Each structure stands twice: as structure tokens, then as C-alpha cells.
């Protein structure tokens, strides 16, 4: 996904003089050629993430379209107040593109992991949050968001689904349950393939999205209305329950049950290893999701 991101932004640098890339050393090598071809439009500030966000705000104040990139914890958490003040309060936009979401950087340890990123950003108004599940979705998301002026968080992942799905504001139904179905499973970004496998023998509707904010409340309400039960299992690759309040809002007019899967909130996992091992520890592998789904849907 990182290569697709760089290639798509490279094309935008060629075509749109508004595009400007702001870096803090991470991935600077990917943009070395572009930096030579577009003087002043690939800005590497060195390891200065607070400046990175406020500089992006200043660039946007002059009408440019900043694309800002680093590891998730250094892009969203370290300069959080810059995101709030330098972008939001100034009423300007940028596209923040992270790598290392959740536990992709499993061998690097806690300092390079940020499963809280979407939840933290979700405390601020006016953000579009995209969590692509496939490199083609990264390209499609950028092509939709680069021409705008809005605030976007694009969260790249180290794992991907087998096939790309459309990027847009609506939930995408991947499998439709019967009118007597047990409910709806919502898979976000790279969770889709394992959700489909984990729920293969359940009578549920499986919906997918790579756009988690704004959340498609109307779409979820319609899918649960068509299902046998208004029960929703949300499987997100980041902090457990990040979208639980959105599910609650979507279903506020009906009795329902809901369960959130994601990275647990109650303890820091002090382990290295592979992303697959972290997924297993968090119950986000296929077996973990399958067990949680059977328990939740009472089958």
C-alpha cells in the first residue's frame, strides 16, 4: 500500500500544482525523485512531527493541498494538538497518510504502534477517515480526496484483502443473509477476508467499508432492518469499540445488540513477533473472530 500511495501522490505532483508532500524523514526515499522534479513541493522537515503538521496547515492557508506522512504514532498522537489547532481550528485541510497502523510494526514494539489512532482522531470534528483493505483502494481514496480541501486520515495497512472494493461513503454489502438471518457483520478495511472466512457458515449479512468516518449510519440501519435480528458485530483493525458509538447512533430507534472486535483497551501487549501473532493475541485472527461471532449470534 505504501508504494501505491507514493505512486498516486507522484502522479498528483505531476498533474496538480496544489499538491505538496510534507515529511519527517519517514519514506523520504520514496519521494526522492519527485523532490528533484518538483522543487518546493516535497518538503522533508527532518524528524520534526509537530512542525510537520503546522507547516501543512500553513501550506493549506496559501491554497495548497498538503499530503503529510509518517508512522501512525508520530503522525496522529505526538502532534495531536497541532492537528486540532494547526488544521482543524484554522479550518484548513490536509491528507494525513499513516503506515504502521495498529500492530503492523509488531517487531518494533509499543513505540511504533498506534491502535488508538482512529479513536483519537474521532474526538475532532470534520475528519474523513479511510482504512483501505487493498492497494487499489488506496489509489481510489487518494484520487477522491486529493482534489478537495477537507481533512482526511488515510490509514495504510501491512495486510490486504484478495480483492479491492469500491471506495465511497456507503457500506458495501459483500454477502446478504436471509430474512431470518442472525444479524449484520461489519468488516473494516483489511479485516474483510478473515471476517468472510470466519462467518462462512453463519446466516448473516456481511458489509464492508474502507470509509469509517463519516460513518454510513443510514446504510447500517437499512441492513439491520432487512436482517432477521438487529444485531451488529463490528470488526475493526484498531482499538476495540472505536465505531461502537456510531453503531449505537445508527440503531438508536430499535432494540439491538452489538459487539465490537478490535485491539483490546484493557492492557498493553508487551510482545514482538509477527502481525499474525498479534492478531491472534487480540482475537482478530480468523479463529478468534469465528468464535466471537458464534458466541454473539448465539449459534
Amino acid at each position, binding site marked *: 500500500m505504501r508504494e501505491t500511495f507514493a505512486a498516486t501522490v507522484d502522479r498528483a505532483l505531476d498533474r496538480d500544482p496544489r499538491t505538496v508532500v510534507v515529511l519527517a524523514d519517514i519514506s523520504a526515499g520514496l519521494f526522492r525523485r519527485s523532490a528533484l522534479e518538483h522543487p*518546493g513541493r516535497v518538503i522533508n522537515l527532518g524528524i520534526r512531527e509537530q512542525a510537520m503538521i503546522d507547516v501543512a496547515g500553513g501550506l493549506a492557508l*496559501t*491554497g495548497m493541498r498538503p499530503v503529510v506522512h509518517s508512522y501512525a504514532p508520530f503522525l496522529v498522537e505526538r502532534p495531536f494538538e497541532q492537528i486540532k489547532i494547526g488544521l482543524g481550528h*484554522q479550518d484548513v485541510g490536509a491528507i494525513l497518510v499513516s503506515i504502521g497502523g495498529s500492530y503492523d510494526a509488531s517487531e518494533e514494539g509499543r513505540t511504533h504502534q498506534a491502535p488508538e489512532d482512529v479513536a483519537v482522531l474521532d474526538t475532532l470534528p470534520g475528519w474523513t477517515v479511510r482504512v483501505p483493505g487493498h492497494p487499489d483502494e488506496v489509489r481510489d481514496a487518494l484520487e477522491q480526496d486529493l482534489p478537495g480541501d477537507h481533512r482526511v486520515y488515510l490509514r495504510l495497512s501491512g495486510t490486504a484483502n484478495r480483492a479491492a472494493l469500491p471506495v465511497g461513503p456507503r457500506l458495501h454489502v459483500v454477502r446478504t443473509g436471509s430474512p431470518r438471518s442472525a444479524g449484520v457483520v461489519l468488516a473494516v478495511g483489511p479485516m474483510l477476508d478473515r471476517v468472510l472466512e470466519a462467518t462462512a457458515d453463519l446466516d448473516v449479512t456481511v458489509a464492508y467499508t474502507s470509509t469509517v468516518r463519516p460513518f454510513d449510519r443510514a446504510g447500517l440501519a437499512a441492513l439491520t432492518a432487512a436482517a432477521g435480528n438487529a444485531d451488529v458485530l463490528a470488526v475493526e483493525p484498531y482499538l476495540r469499540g472505536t465505531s461502537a458509538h456510531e453503531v449505537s447512533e445508527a440503531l438508536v430507534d430499535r432494540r439491538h445488540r452489538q459487539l465490537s472486535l478490535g485491539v483490546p483497551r484493557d492492557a498493553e501487549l508487551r510482545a514482538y513477533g509477527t502481525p499474525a501473532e498479534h492478531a491472534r493475541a487480540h482475537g482478530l485472527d480468523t479463529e478468534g473472530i469465528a468464535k466471537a461471532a458464534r458466541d454473539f449470534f448465539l449459534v
Partner: protein
Amino acid sequence: MTTAATFSRYADLPALIGLMEGDEKHTGAAASTLDVLWVLYDHVLDVTPATAEAPDRDRFLLSKGHGPAAYYAVLAAKGFLDVPTLRRWTTFDSPLGHHPDRVLVPGVEIGSGSLGHGMALGLGSALGLRAQRIRRPDGTEPRVVVLIGDGELDEGANHEAIAAAGRLGADNLTVVAIDNGSATHGWPGGIGRRFEVEGWQTREVDGRDHDALRAAFTPSRTGRPLVVVARVRNGSRGA
């Protein structure tokens, strides 16, 4: 009914501030910036109410945000704000609060109040103007001027911006640092050294001396950003 035209001189600024704070209550923070703000808007910055949205305008960013009465007074004297608006400041539906909001006030370039954001926002604006090769009809390059306080310089984010601006050679960026000795632990050797070592051109002046300020703001064409350290004793006022 008052009009901007009747309150357009330096001598009118205390009365304009009085509309907000009351005649008896001029805060030190507001007064420390008064002369610098006046010289900037009267002599230095190429921006008027008519050009407040023009891409090639000069930009002034009040980074420290605190004590904005002098700022609002100068904006009113220069016609960016209606004088009667000053009377209602800090009320619910007033555009003027104790920290300025760019969305609410015409001519205000940034919302500020949380310290340490203005310099990097200003650096970004300077780099944005340069990347787009924005020039005025006479070929000159618009400049970005950021006002910070010596206490504000404590915030580490400033030092990221100082270093980055120096390395990137942003000579369309000027910082004016109001030094009224308010930093708790001080700046041994002076504020200017923090900039100088990062490649900035450094000038130190009396922050009440209009002629000296005017000369100090003469643009740097050296490939280096410019810092003007304006020394001010709180409570003192003069031309």
C-alpha cells in the same frame, strides 16, 4: 456613531483599546505588542482590507494570541474591523475573543492562543507562497511575519520551526520576538542566539522605537529568514 476614519492614527490606539478593556485597565501583554503591531500595519505589511484575501498579500500571524486588544485596535484603525465591534468583545456573538479566531475576524490570518503554533504555520505559509511562485505585479515576493513572545519561545515546537526555516532558507519569513523578559527561566545570551545558530539573520531593536523597528523589518534577501528581537519593558509606552 464612530467610524474607522476617526480612529485611524497611532494616537487613537489607547482609546480603541479602552473600548475593549476599559480606560483604566491596559494589560501588559497588550501594550507590549502595540508599537510593533502599529509599525507593521502602518509601514511594513502590504495588506489592506481590500486585499485581505488576495493571494499575493503579506501575511501577519499573531502566534502568541494572548492580549489581543492591541491587535484588534490596530486592525480597527486600519479598517479591517468596525470600531463599534470592539465594544462587544468577548461577548457570546462577538467575533473578538481573548484569543483571535481567523474564521471570525476578517484580516486575522490564524487562530491562536495555544502557544508555539504560529512559527510553523508561518513557515508553511512562506513555503506555500514560494512553491506557487506567487509574486505581486511589481515582481516582489509577499512575505510572512510572525509575532511571538519570549515566554512563548519556551514551547519546544518553536525550535522545530526555527531549525527547519533556517535549513530551508525561507527568507520570505520574518519572526518578530517581543522580549519583555517574561520567560520563567530566561534565555541566557539572548533570544537572538537561538535563531542565529540556525542560520537566521538577527536584528535587535527597542520595541518602542518606530524608526528602528521600521528599519529592522527591511526584508532579508540573504537566503536566510529574519528575526527581529524587539525589547520591551512592560508598562513603558512611547513612540
